């Protein structure tokens, strides 16, 4: 792999060819907000929160799926980018029913943290309030589609790490849902190994462990550091 030199936020930095802007930025201590990204899993560029400006590009690019190039000039933070990111969070909040006060992930939620960090204090858009439903048929876990942001971390961890590929995505736009085994209730899934990785990587309260009450659902995610270790090996 060849070394690539570029400029991020005015700093001269170096990465390897094939590396993403996000990866190089983080190696150099430059923070870019993300939601669908998780170290150790493949990138899908789904949430678009990591959008950055690249000199010469006509639109912002997702840092997680854009490879660094020689002499690239990247800006990670502008008022416009912060506005876009806040709007993305607002869209996520209004698309489903994210009721932090009674959510098991309250105070341990990446969506909530992002809203706070980006200054999203209220919705300007009307909330859709869909009846997204809850599948609690699994013996130990449940999926509350009201809290899902379609980051697909569950889909990727299940396919790429556990090797079960129980999870997938059905439908489009606001009708899209993560599903188990082509829509089989989770409790009847023949492929789910009940490993619980999907629950641990879920950034919100969508995937939860039964028996955990409000605010105590995502306090501990002991599996997540192992994903990073795997990433370092590969």
């Amino acid at each position, binding site marked *: 792999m060849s070394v690539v030199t570029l400029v991020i936020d005015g700093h001269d930095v170096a990465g390897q060819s094939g590396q993403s802007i996000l990866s190089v930025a983080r190696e150099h201590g430059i923070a870019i907000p993300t939601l669908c990204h998780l170290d150790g899993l493949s990138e899908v560029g789904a949430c678009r929160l990591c959008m950055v400006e690249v000199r010469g590009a006509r639109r912002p690019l997702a840092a997680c799926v854009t490879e660094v190039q020689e002499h690239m000039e990247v800006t990670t933070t502008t008022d416009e980018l912060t506005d876009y990111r806040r709007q993305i969070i607002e869209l996520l909040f209004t698309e489903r029913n994210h009721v932090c*006060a*009674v959510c*098991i992930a*309250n105070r341990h939620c990446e969506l909530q943290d992002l809203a706070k960090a980006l200054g999203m204090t209220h919705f300007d858009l009307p909330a859709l309030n869909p*009846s997204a*439903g*809850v599948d*609690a*048929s699994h*013996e130990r876990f*449940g999926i*509350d589609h009201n809290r899902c942001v379609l980051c697909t971390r569950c889909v990727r961890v299940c396919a790429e790490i556990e090797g079960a590929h129980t999870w997938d995505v059905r439908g489009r736009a606001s009708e899209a849902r993560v599903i188990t085994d082509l829509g089989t209730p989770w*409790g009847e899934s023949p492929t789910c190994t009940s490993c619980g990785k999907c629950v641990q990587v879920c950034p919100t309260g969508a995937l*939860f462990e*039964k*028996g*955990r*009450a*409000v*605010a*105590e659902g995502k306090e501990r995610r002991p599996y997540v550091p192992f994903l990073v270790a795997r990433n370092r090996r590969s």
Partner: protein
Amino acid sequence: MSEIIIEPVTRIEGHSKITVQLDDTGEVVDAHFHVTQFRGFERICVGRPLWEMPSLMARICGICPVSHLIASAKACDEILAVEIPPLARRLRRVMNLAQIVQSHALNFFHLSSADLVFGFDGDPKERSFAGVAEAAPELARDGVALRRFGQQIIERLGGKRIHPAWVVPGGVSRPLEAAQRDAILAEVPDARARAKRALGWYKEHLARFAEEADQFGNFPSLFMGLVHESGRAAYSEGLLKVVDANGWVLADQVDPRPYWEYLGEHVEPWSYLKSPYFKPLGYPDGLYRVGPLARLNVIDRLGTPSADGELAEYRERLGRYPQSSFHYHWARLIEIVHCIDAIEHILSEPDILDHHVRAEARVNRNEGVGVAEAPRGTLIHHYQVDDHGLVESANLVIATGHNNLAMNAAVKQVARHYVHGPDVAEGILNRMEAAIRCFDPCLSCSTHAIGQMPLAIELRAPDGTIVREVAR
């Protein structure tokens, strides 16, 4: 016929109005207390996981979330079919008692004391808690301090003053720490002194309100509350007891969970608040009262010495079974003293810092009922869930609801006594509101609604036209 409307009724928790119908001679024909807000929590929770229920239901109220936490968690315990660790029961009890202290303090000092300090005909401009703070600063300070005492206990146990997520299905989420226990115990003497000072103040001034005490919902009725099997007061557990105005026991040592066997829920078209009644006597004869007055009538004793001393004096002056709703105030102050004593007693037990505070279980039943005493009376949460623990239906019988028939009867009594013709002095309108305040209704708790909290009074002519309407 003409009608007086008071809308909204003030210094209560929730939205409501009072209507008074007058005949052609200006005499009162009928009067109603209408609850004009709707909350809908029985519907909101459908489809939600069982483990979310205590915290979700606690959002019904910002004043008494702990009552809903406890009744809801008890319903969930039933569905899990677990017996929670005894220590968890005691810790839940402490939080419930703390909430009764702060909620009672809110009603007596912040909402009601202005009527007692300035009189029911006092200048409305100063007849408020701010006015009390000027005219009787020690009384106001005691009220603020007692609320803080209760709220800080809730925070020390649950991490938050309002809506702590600490009470969970199966027990509580974490044990009590020594530092928190010691901090609470250190504040008990001051709180007790303040509560007793307020009680002394009230007893001294009671004689000034003989007419109001005689007219504010002073009628025979049934009384209902949870009682420990030994006959002492029970707030978080206990069995139901119902007595009539003469103390005849209609039900005792009754399991409160199959409440539908003895409580009916009538609906009137003019109010969002259900009108529960005691089934054996039918509707509306099965009118009963709950809350402080009723609790002191159904128990033999409170169970803590200093509060029992106060109870003895209360019974000596008012009789064994006081009937006037005005005496809710006195009963409330005695309960504050008792709750402070009981908190101290429980927290002084040597094993209170142990770690067995939670039972883990899956859904083992499809139905559960949780019953506890809220500040305003008996609170019932009833859930049905599917095999996976998702809520299919919920029925809530809220403490304020139990008192609905009694509140209507009280308004009618006050109106008949004081209202003669459509020209009604402000002090009379205030008395109608004050009769409601005695019950300390929490209307936002009881109808499941949009909005905040005020009430209104209507005076209507025989042809239904509104003669006078008072709204704030």
